[in-house]
């Protein structure tokens, strides 16, 4: 026996030294943290191609930062924006920062000119198809005499009817500079609004906005650029938005919470241990067991997941309050009798129940390990490994390190004794039955009011100022780029383009009704070969040639015969615009990013959507479109949270049944029921409480209830196992429930909604399960006997 304890001590000490060495090695190489909240969720993409495009588009959007620099005076605003852009550029955080809109309609028209006979705008195609030549003629004549005709990118002798001009205006030039409310000044996009001139500056981050290094650099670059701006132009203002700012805020918040919750939990634990045991040794040993637990949890997550998520660390602070249980239990044993106490004796006495309790808690976390959510699994793994390590410390190291410090009757034990003797224990009299009935009614009434909410907002609730800036920016620019977009795939480029054209036809009524603000895809600048050929036939029949509309118009207006002749003999074998040619044109500009040459099994095009007002109509409009996938990450996340919520509620029932069966084997069918009653009651009361306070039900409440079960079974088992020494057991459970409650309760202060949900549920659940365990548990009669 003696040798076994010593052997365990040596082995455990060796293993922990190895852990420390490995951890030190990892830290020296630089620990990498993850802060993308969506990384906590599983990937709903059906296939690799869709995933690749989705990730690429998401990464592109995530790396964009938009800033509007505003001042009452136009010139001040323009020079302020130039300076601001220059400062951002100089920071090195950005791949590039644009204040100049570089699209030149004239240059674009030059590039498109060789292909013009195959290019028509929707409107002109319709007119030519219907043979509406007279209106087309009149339109051209009016246009040529108007003031605004000087804005045409092509001269009359090259595009007399304005067909190519119209094609270009209708699509190819679309970009930030062509927005409805912006105008160009000194090459910059300017919005005039309420006496302010706002100038658009856009940047693309060099690194991922979810890397903490980029976040720090971005924050400081923005701050110093804003400070410099305030010096140069005191009346200037900025409105900045972008995924990077959200990510930076969320990461900062997580770090703040991690250190706040961690230190408060630790403080509570330290205070409690000192107050109870009035000795430094238990404190030091407890802290060592907790520290090693945290280190082991971190290392495990790093090894298994590659990167540790910041939210895992926030959740991980609860390890302090939970893992300290084992140490509390262990040291509380010295109050059991007045005879001299030793660590070995404690091991013999409370070792088994510590182990059972540990297994129950681990079982609770292990059920979370089964959840198909990477974030939850990471938190569970962190906790399981952390708890196991802390438990191993207590069971293997403490027996040889703990000393009797002579304290026998701390105030806490007196409290526990009083609690144990109090008439609070359940008995079948009218008062207790009435209380039970009230609780049942409370739970039932609250549960009836529960409303499920499965929303991406559970993952991230941005602060009001960021949201306000984003709204203001989008209002000024009259845009709201939607997170939804469409992917069009096909066997070859031609098929993709044709499918995208078919898709545009499906979307046309939605665009006309304003249900979708805009749909931007490559076919705006690059029609399919089939369409170009059809449009060429239309133009050859009606526009060019001896008696074509263009020829007639030119002679009517008195053009030189040479000009007219040149247009009447348009080359029928002119080249067709194809993907490689189009991509090599400067004019394809931002649309080029929407084309993917090969995503496995063929190319793909992306259609970005602006201001989607009727998502349902969009969904039904694109349903059944061949080769088209609607990517809707927000809806995917919601569906995922809903599905998992349903699964989790079934899972909870299953876990209860399993634990009941396991308990029944040891304690018998009836006592197993009594042991399970506190956690089950606490779970129902917590749900009722959530219902009464109007907090919506989500997946994370349910996952938290699994943990309540894990902890709660502990308390009931400890009380049951330790009947004979009840006050000390009651003390140990009370202390551990208190520290656990503090740790989880702190989570309910988190800014991350789902962490808050878990915190709230756990805080309520742990408090309730403790009260119920004491109320419904065995009465401490044996101690007096």
């Amino acid at each position, binding site marked *: 026996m003696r040798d076994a304890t010593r052997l365990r001590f040596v082995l455990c000490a060796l293993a922990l030294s190895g852990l420390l060495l490995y951890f030190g090695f990892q830290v020296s190489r630089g620990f990498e943290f993850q802060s993308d909240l969506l990384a906590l969720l599983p990937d709903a993409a059906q296939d690799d191609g869709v995933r690749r495009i989705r990730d690429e588009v998401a990464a592109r959007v995530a790396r964009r930062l938009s800033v509007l620099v505003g001042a009452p005076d*136009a*010139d001040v605003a*323009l020079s302020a924006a130039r300076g601001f852009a220059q400062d951002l550029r100089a920071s090195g955080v950005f791949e590039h920062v644009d204040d100049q*809109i570089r699209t*030149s*309609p*004239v240059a674009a028209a030059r590039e498109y000119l060789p292909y013009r006979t195959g290019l028509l705008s929707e409107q002109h195609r319709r007119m030519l198809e219907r043979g509406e030549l007279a209106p087309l003629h*009149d*339109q*051209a*004549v*009016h*246009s*040529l*005499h*108007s*003031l*605004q*005709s*000087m*804005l*045409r*990118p092509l*001269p*009359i*002798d090259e595009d007399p009817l*304005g067909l190519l*001009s*119209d094609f270009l*205006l*209708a699509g190819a*030039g679309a970009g930030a*500079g*062509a*927005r*409805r409310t*912006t*105008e*160009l*000044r*000194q*090459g910059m*996009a300017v919005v*005039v609004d309420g006496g302010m001139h706002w100038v658009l500056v856009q940047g693309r981050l060099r690194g991922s906005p979810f890397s903490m290094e980029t976040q720090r650099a971005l924050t400081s670059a923005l701050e110093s650029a804003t400070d410099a701006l305030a010096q140069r132009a005191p009346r200037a203002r900025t409105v900045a938005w972008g995924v990077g700012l959200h990510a930076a805020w969320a990461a900062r918040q997580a770090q703040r919470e991690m250190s706040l919750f961690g230190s408060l939990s630790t403080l509570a634990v330290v205070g409690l241990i000192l107050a109870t045991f009035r000795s430094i040794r238990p404190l030091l040993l407890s802290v060592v067991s907790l520290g090693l637990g945290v280190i082991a949890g971190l290392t495990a997550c790093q090894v298994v997941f590659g990167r540790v998520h910041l939210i895992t660390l926030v959740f991980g602070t609860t390890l302090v309050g939970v893992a300290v249980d084992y140490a509390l239990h262990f040291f509380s044993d010295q109050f059991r009798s007045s005879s001299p106490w030793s660590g070995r004796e404690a091991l013999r006495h409370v070792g088994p129940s510590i182990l059972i309790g540990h297994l129950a808690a681990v079982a609770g976390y292990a059920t979370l390990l089964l959840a198909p959510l990477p974030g939850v699994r990471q938190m569970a793994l962190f906790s399981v490994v952390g708890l196991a390590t802390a438990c191993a410390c207590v069971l293997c190291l403490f027996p040889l390190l703990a000393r009797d410090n002579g304290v026998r009757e701390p105030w806490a034990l007196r409290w526990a004794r009083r609690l144990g003797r109090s008439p609070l224990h359940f008995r079948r009299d009218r008062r207790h039955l009435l209380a039970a009935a009230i609780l049942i009614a409370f739970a039932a009434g609250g549960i009836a009011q529960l409303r499920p909410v499965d929303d991406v907002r559970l993952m991230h609730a941005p602060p009001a100022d960021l949201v306000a800036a984003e709204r203001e920016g989008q209002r000024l620019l009259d845009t709201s780029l939607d997170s939804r977009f469409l992917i069009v795939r096909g066997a070859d480029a031609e098929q993709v383009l044709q499918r995208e054209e078919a898709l545009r036809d499906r979307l046309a009524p939605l665009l006309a009704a304003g249900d979708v603000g805009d749909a931007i895809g490559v076919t705006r600048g690059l029609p399919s070969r089939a369409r170009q050929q059809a449009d060429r036939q239309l133009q050859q029949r009606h526009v060019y040639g001896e008696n074509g509309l263009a020829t007639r118009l*030119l002679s009517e*207006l*008195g*053009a*030189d015969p*040479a*000009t007219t002749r040149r247009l009447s003999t348009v080359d029928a074998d002119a080249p067709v615009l194809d993907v490689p040619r189009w991509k090599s044109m400067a004019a394809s500009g931002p649309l080029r990013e929407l084309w993917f040459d090969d995503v496995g099994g063929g190319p793909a095009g992306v259609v970005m959507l602006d201001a989607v007002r009727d998502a349902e109509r969009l969904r039904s409009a694109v349903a059944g479109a061949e080769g088209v996938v609607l990517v809707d990450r927000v809806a995917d996340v919601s569906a995922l949270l809903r599905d998992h919520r349903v699964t989790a509620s079934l899972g909870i029932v299953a876990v209860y049944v399993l634990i009941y069966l396991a308990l029944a084997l040891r304690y018998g069918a009836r006592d197993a029921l009594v042991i399970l009653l506190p956690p089950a009651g606490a779970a129902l009361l917590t749900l009722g409480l959530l219902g009464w306070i109007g907090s919506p039900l989500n997946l994370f409440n349910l996952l938290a209830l699994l943990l309540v079960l894990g902890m709660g079974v502990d308390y009931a088992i400890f009380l049951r196992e330790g009947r004979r020494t009840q006050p000390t057991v009651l003390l140990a459970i009370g202390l551990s429930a208190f520290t656990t409650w503090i740790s989880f309760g702190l989570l309910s202060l988190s800014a991350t909604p789902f962490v808050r949900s878990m915190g709230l549920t756990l805080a309520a659940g742990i408090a309730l399960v403790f009260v119920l365990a004491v109320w419904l548990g065995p009465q401490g009669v044996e101690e007096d006997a």
Partner: protein
Amino acid sequence: MRLFALLLLANAATGAGAAELFDRPADRTTVEQALSEPIGVLRRATVVRARFEQARHLSGFGHPLTSSGEMLFVRGTGIVWRVLEPFDSTSVFDRNGMRSGDGQAGPAPAAALRVLSGVLLSMLDLDVAALESRFEMFTSARSAGWILGLRPRDPGVADFAERMTISGRATLEHIELRDARGDRTEITFRDVTTAGGPATPRDLAPFEP
């Protein structure tokens, strides 16, 4: 034939004049001094009316495309440009861009239309500060009246109007725009009348959305 020769001569003269004009950059104060008379007239007015003649000299055409009509300029509001010959068509320019009454003008990019509208408004208003933010300015002495040369600072504007001149005596009488291809648009205002006092509802009616 003699007329033709005269025209040629006149063209050459303005061409040389223009080249010279664009050698003489001017700052805001100089321009405001040179234009003090028409600016003074304008500042007392709220509404300006005129008849206009527009000639577009386009490559590939032996003679210009001409049109004429009436112009109404309500200061601080916008311009109603009504073509009467060779056909009837009305366009309204204001701070938000341009609207064409009959929808026959064909589309132009909204951003470009706002720029054009803004430029026209500041030219008719002789708003030197606003012009300065968009153009480099040039002016030269004249025996009678004034002339102002404008060269866009904005490459987007330069695409369509490489340089412009506006000139006149007591009022703005002549606008000339020249694009990078050499196409030229000339606008001449006649029978310019100004009126003070608030604009009448009838004047403002075309600007209602």
